[in-house]
């Protein structure tokens, strides 16, 4: 049998790694190749999350110009505290969106979780851990029920979770009973965690530097594996450069936050959840299956993937994240009430995922969009809080700014599509 690629000129074949032998590829070897590739990526609009970041920078710049407390350390620390709860909920939304499904009930589930926590801890006198576990399990069970309904009866997730939104809100009111608002003691662990626990100065820098080191080590290991397998590698200079960028991205905020109270542990938990889920999505078989189901459910089924299992796990995870978000929200407000999880919690969580770049149509997106998206949303909301606006004007401005932030991103996507990289 002939396995050779008979037509490629033999000399270049020998010199090039297996993945760079095609003649049609525009040369990508070495640092110059990389720089060229980067430039051409920029030109063709393949910018990853850069556009949203640019949108964010614009928003920050404008708000800072309007009110110079916007970028103050104190306000930025507040921003981190404000982002954690809904951001955590948005991680779950990213997951269901990756499947091309939706969960409209995350607000209610987070509200129920707040209510269970408060009633359990305060009224029933459960130990906090028990209350927390019960609240999270309740969320998971709701998600499993959604998954079961979806996979068994094929009811669209939009309808299931719309019904869930109402039913779970009912449950929340039922759990709260006649009490209405229940305050959670300020000296309870959860409230302290959500309001007053910050990384010690030294620890915060160590954490940031560790993250950079981990990145470099991982890249170097991948490089050596790829070289051993005869595949192309990233030039060390490039790795160094990227590590530098990462270091700046991590250390500057750490410094700024440390000028006020510091890096909130609750926010760190949220970021950690994002990182873990990003790993799970990109680097595990489960995550690959999620992407496959979201991309083409029939192809996934034919590939032998347990499609029902994937749906179940994702709906369960989404509600679980919603429940965790509810706990964080309760901790931060030091209270649970009938409107916990109400208002625009749902819309903000979904919007965060979408603004961060996760597609509503499945198969495209990243856990990081929850982080980016929620920061955009909270920045707008926090920035507008600093300006004395009438509600009517504030609504109009919020809508406009939101649109602006996403238009930058969409424009670049559009150019990407025109360049055939949709």
């Amino acid at each position: 049998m002939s396995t050779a690629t008979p037509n490629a000129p033999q000399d270049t074949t020998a010199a090039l790694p297996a993945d760079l032998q095609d003649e049609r590829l525009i040369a990508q070897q070495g640092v110059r190749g990389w720089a060229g590739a980067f430039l051409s990526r920029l030109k063709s609009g393949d910018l990853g999350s850069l556009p949203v970041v640019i949108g964010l920078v614009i928003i920050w710049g404008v708000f800072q110009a309007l009110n110079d407390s916007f970028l103050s350390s104190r306000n930025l620390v507040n921003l981190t505290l404000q982002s954690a709860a809904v951001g955590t909920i948005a991680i779950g939304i990213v997951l269901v969106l990756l499947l091309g499904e939706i969960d409209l009930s995350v607000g209610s589930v987070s509200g129920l979780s707040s209510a269970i926590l408060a009633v359990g801890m305060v009224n029933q006198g459960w130990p906090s851990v028990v209350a927390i576990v019960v609240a999270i399990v309740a969320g998971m069970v709701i998600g499993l029920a959604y998954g079961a309904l979806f996979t068994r009866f094929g009811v669209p997730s939009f309808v299931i979770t719309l019904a869930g939104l109402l039913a779970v809100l009912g449950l929340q009111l039922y759990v709260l009973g006649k009490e209405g608002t229940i305050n959670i003691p300020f000296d309870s662990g959860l409230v302290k965690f959500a309001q007053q626990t910050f990384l010690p100065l030294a620890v915060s820098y160590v954490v940031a530097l560790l993250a950079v080191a981990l990145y470099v080590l991982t890249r170097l290991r991948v490089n050596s594996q790829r070289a051993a397998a005869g595949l192309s590698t990233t030039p060390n200079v490039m790795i160094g450069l990227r590590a530098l960028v990462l270091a700046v991205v991590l250390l500057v905020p750490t410094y700024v936050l440390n000028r006020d109270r510091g890096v909130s542990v609750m926010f760190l938990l949220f970021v950690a959840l994002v990182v873990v889920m990003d790993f799970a999505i990109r680097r595990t078989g489960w995550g690959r299956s999620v992407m496959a189901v979201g991309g083409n459910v029939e192809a996934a089924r034919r590939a032998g993937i347990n499609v029902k299992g994937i749906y179940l796990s994702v709906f369960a995870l989404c509600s679980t994240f919603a429940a965790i978000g509810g706990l964080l929200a309760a901790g931060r407000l030091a209270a649970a009430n009938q409107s916990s999880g109400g208002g625009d919690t749902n819309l903000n969580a979904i919007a965060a995922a979408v603004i961060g770049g996760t597609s509503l149509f499945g198969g495209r997106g990243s856990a990081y969009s929850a982080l980016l998206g929620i920061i955009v949303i909270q920045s707008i909301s926090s920035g507008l809080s600093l300006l004395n606006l009438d509600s009517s004007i504030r609504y109009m401005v919020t809508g406009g700014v939101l649109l602006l932030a996403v238009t930058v991103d969409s424009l670049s996507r559009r150019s990407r599509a025109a360049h055939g990289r949709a």
Partner: protein
Amino acid sequence: MTATAAPATTAVLSLKGVSKRFGAVQALKDIDFDVNAGEVVALVGDNGAGKSTLVKTIAGVYTPDEGTMTFDGRTTSVSTPAEAQRLGIATVFQDLALCDNLDVVGNLFLGRELYRGRALDEVRMEQESWRLLRQLSAKIPSVRIPVASLSGGQRQTVAIARSLLGDPKVVMLDEPTAALGVAQTAEVLNLVERLRDNGHGVILISHNMSDVMAVADRVHVLRLGRNNGTFHVSQTSTQEIIAAITGATTNAVSERASRRVQKEEQS
């Protein structure tokens, strides 16, 4: 017509009386079908004859309305593609069934990922992908682009390469060479022969009679959803098979053929 009954004893896969109906359309009616180990059976028939429906029924994509299936001597009912794979049935579907958002490596190893610890071993999968694709003479510039951006033939090559992973007992190829270039087609025919030589059962669907005659041992003809004869390649001619497919001896094909002969004689 020299239609002969299929040998019923050594079949790895055997269908009896399979019917499948879609709404008002009877896609399959009373189909009997066998494949032996180490045998290439060509499944041929006109457009809409029910070939793909039969393949999908065997692969667990559709459940038949009637009929039984025997695999490796045991009567089984395959109700999901996962089960079919567990039994050892690998399939290249006509509609390819790739995930457009995943890259070539992701699609190749979908459902059969390689691990390094608990994480995916992307490096080994990429290396292995290049090996498989080279083997099929694939002309794919990069395995790290979403398959959405591949050409028709490139996509088909990826689907075929998929079926080479694992060690299936029966391989079903639904028009595997339809979009392939001449070199790639030749490689796939080589591959079919290698599979047979290694004792696999192969079901090959194709509209290309010369390919069929070149690699098949037996030809099974479907016509409008019904059995229309089985032929041993060594004992039949292309003409005879085409007649069974179209249900007539004179038709557009033979007309074209005769015109061509005339033309060639003139020139």
